[in-house]
């Protein structure tokens, strides 16, 4: 058997189909997991709202304190 003949025979092996029932179950389970998987968010995206509210709150307190002491 030459190398070319062997490579041809190997490349012809290809994939093997699972049974329709197994394939149906695999796909259904995977699609369910896909629906459950939460979108990927970065740390910054996760804490951004908290950060913005904290900064806004601190800024507001600082402004009020300025007004209070000015009076």
């Amino acid at each position: 058997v030459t190398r070319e003949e062997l490579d041809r025979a190997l490349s012809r092996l290809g994939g093997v189909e699972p049974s329709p029932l197994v394939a149906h179950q695999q796909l259904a389970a995977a699609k369910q997991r896909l629906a459950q998987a939460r979108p990927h968010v970065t740390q910054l995206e996760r804490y951004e709202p908290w950060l913005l509210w904290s900064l806004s709150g601190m800024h507001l307190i600082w402004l009020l304190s300025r007004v209070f002491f000015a009076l």
Partner: protein
Amino acid sequence: LILAVTRAKPLPPAPTPRAALPAAALARLRKGDAAAFEQVYDAYRARVYGFLLRLTRDASLAQDLAQETWLRLAANARTLTPDTELHAWLFKVARNLFVSQRRWAIFRENGLRILHLLPPSAAIPSPLEEAAAGELGLRVERALLGLPLHYREVVLLVAVEGLSSAEVAQLLGVSHAAVRQRLARGRAAVVRSLEEET
């Protein structure tokens, strides 16, 4: 069970082994699109199952590992990078699952055979027998299943699944030269086995 079989919609024919997946499918998959996932599943289900079947030499184990591979893809779809080579990613996950289950195989029935401590069974798993085209196909399958694991996985990934040796080197975490060497030795062992048969 019968109802589930009859209600299961017929599977679309699997594309040829090296059919490329449209680039847009990966982009949609990264957004969690179920239709894109189905497209990927249709394109690769036979390849992933065939790869695992030849790696494990056990149809039910290959089915379980294929199921887990698809669940991993579903769980990680949104974290894939735009340049992910999906076929290499799937084979890497499938191979890693096989490697980790081998660590626990000793405690299970048939464990010694999976760990290759016993000689491989001469019988080809029936799904491979059905899929083999002709007498030569069967002989090559038999010779392939008799290869030691470290040669078999390289021959499967390069010669059967069409991955480049650079991709396989990255996937297995070994050098390019080691992949080439294992491939050459694996091919030689298959040829020897075929010649001994005749």
